[in-house]
């Protein structure tokens, strides 16, 4: 899922276990996932299952999967995947990590079972992991800013890929910071310092998997960047950790809290990232972004709720939202048509506002 693997690998390595990183999602992953997953399940489950099968082929003998509770089907996915793997005669240890905010006791007991005496390494593992999460998000945000200004198409993506590799290879906090610094310096060489007048700013909200996995969303951030838009990804690795894993004092508070900002449009937790989609759109309007793109996997219940709420936000706050429902199709033409038209729309609005 995006660059999340870098963080997870760092944590697992630090805990003294071997981590198998599956190959990046590809056409093969989709074929595996759609073959064995329930047909009506959402795209993230299918890709995730495909990733697991590819990791097992590469030698993984245990699977760590997040659990969950609430209206989104995700909470049930770990159980479904465990069952599918066992039906396929893949004999692996399957560990489900429940979310700490709602199930602290279940989480503690699975960690004890998994780690035993290595529990003592947790603080250091989390420190390195958190630093890498910050680094990945930093490099990503900068590459979004730079892509519309790059000197050659693809320059930013190449730099971003090699920075992520350097962050992955770093083993100390200092090395991680050095990798980020090197990226920033290289990126300055390959870009114009100032954005042109046709540059627009677009926020991306929606279901976390579809946002982060650039295979699943057909490289939407790169496509927008090449159309001359600065992308502001609203749901990032660090943001997800802050919302879902951190205890109270480090959570979002006050004016940047997406859940509070969703009020009065959506006042209830509807599962997944539904309330965040609405909240970040409100926050996006307040920071004067030109528009938002809302990504949802086809049949996603929480995001369908958000989607039906968003037109009201558009009407009240004047921020255009393009909702895109994605599944395993690879026909990019339809997606590109919508993105181009959306960028045209935002530019025209800007010109009218400047008149």
């Amino acid at each position: 899922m995006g660059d999340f693997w870098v963080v997870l690998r760092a944590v697992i390595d630090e805990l003294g276990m071997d981590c198998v990183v599956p190959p990046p999602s590809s056409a093969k992953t989709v074929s595996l996932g759609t073959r064995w997953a329930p047909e009506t399940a959402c795209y993230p489950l299918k890709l995730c299952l495909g990733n697991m099968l590819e990791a097992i082929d590469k030698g993984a003998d245990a699977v760590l999967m997040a659990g969950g509770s609430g209206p989104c089907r995700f909470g049930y996915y770990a159980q479904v995947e465990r069952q599918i793997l066992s039906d396929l005669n893949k004999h692996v240890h399957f560990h489900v990590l429940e979310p700490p905010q709602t199930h602290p006791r279940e989480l503690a007991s699975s960690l004890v079972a998994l780690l035993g005496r290595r529990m003592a390494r947790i603080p250091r593992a989390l420190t390195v992991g958190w630093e890498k999460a910050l680094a990945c998000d930093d490099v990503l945000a900068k590459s979004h800013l730079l892509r519309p200004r790059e000197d050659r198409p693809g320059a930013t993506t190449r730099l971003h890929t090699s920075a992520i590799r350097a962050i992955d290879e770093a083993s100390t906090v200092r090395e991680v910071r050095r990798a980020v610094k090197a990226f920033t310096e290289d990126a300055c060489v390959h870009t114009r310092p100032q954005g042109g007048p046709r540059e627009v700013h677009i926020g991306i909200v929606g279901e976390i998997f579809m946002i982060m996995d650039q295979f699943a969303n057909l490289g939407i951030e790169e496509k927008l960047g090449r159309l001359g838009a600065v992308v502001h990804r609203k749901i990032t690795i660090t943001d997800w950790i802050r919302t879902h894993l951190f205890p109270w004092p480090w959570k979002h508070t006050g004016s940047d809290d997406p859940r509070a900002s969703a009020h009065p449009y959506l006042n209830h937790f509807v599962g997944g990232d539904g309330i965040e989609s609405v909240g970040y759109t409100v926050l996006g309007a307040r920071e004067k972004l030109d528009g938002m793109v809302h990504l949802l996997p086809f049949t996603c219940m929480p995001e369908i709720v958000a989607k039906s709420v968003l037109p009201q936000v558009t009407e009240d706050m004047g921020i255009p939202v393009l909702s895109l429902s994605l599944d395993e199709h690879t026909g990019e033409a339809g997606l590109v048509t919508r993105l181009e038209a959306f960028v045209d729309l935002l530019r025209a609005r800007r010109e009218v506002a400047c008149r």
Partner: protein
Amino acid sequence: MKVNLGLDVGSVSTNLVALDENRNVIHSSYLLTAGRPVEVVQEAVADLQRALPSCSVQAAGTTGSGRELAAQVLGADVIKNEITAHAVAAMSVQPDVRCVLEIGGQDSKIIILQNGVVTDFAMNTVCAAGTGSFLDRQAQRLGIDIKDLGRLALASRNPVRIAGRCAVFAESDMIHKQQMGCGVEDIVRGLCEALVRNYLNNVGKGKAIRQPVLFQGGVAANEGMRSAFEEALGYPVIVPEQHKVMGALGAAIIASRLETNESRFRGFDLSERRFESRGFECSRCPNACEVVELLMEGSVVARWGGRCGRWERSDAAGA
């Protein structure tokens, strides 16, 4: 005489429009794409030359789902998505237009405008129910010429109810009503109403549709659909004269706004050139992208389809 060209390569039809210096339509053609986009583009250009032998091209624009390929064959100066192209064309016909309903062969879209600017749009997402191809297929199944479908629908006295949300449901409802003994005109009218309902619920999805409304695209030729829209909306719907070629008209207007000295247009002899396209599966990574090359007289003029940008190349303008 100098002309600006607009070419719209859609799934079902390929349309070419030529504008004179005052942006008047002096030539338009509507050809069936029939799965051969390259040949049809060549045919359309040959048609144009027959109709206006003395014209020269100032600028050319392409749009439609085949716009990238068409741009390479034609040598286009601008490539524009069909939503913007349709909006531009609608505003040229009706400057105060507030809503464009467009139904083409494989997709349908709604465009909301205010003060000459697009403020919102949507396209059908998942199902092709309610598009031109579906109407075509049903007309064929009932043994009616698609051109007569609209007239037949208007003759209906007692339209039947047909499910519109899914092409499969709609077809099985139609067969059921036909076997019950309902008249063909009532079934056809029911089908038009179902498509309009589906369009307004699925594509229109609660958007505020205000007058004046333009109905364009191939399906706008169907009086049954137009009258079903008027009934559902409660006010008149305008079908512009050039409704079938509005996308091409928009592309031509966008091309005419360019300040280019020299067009990339390949010239009228492109209809005699030999174009071939061939595809291969890249094996550099597990994505296995399907890469397509376009060859003119045996040499590669464009290549696209890869995710990583390794293969891309092009002689025509970018989007």
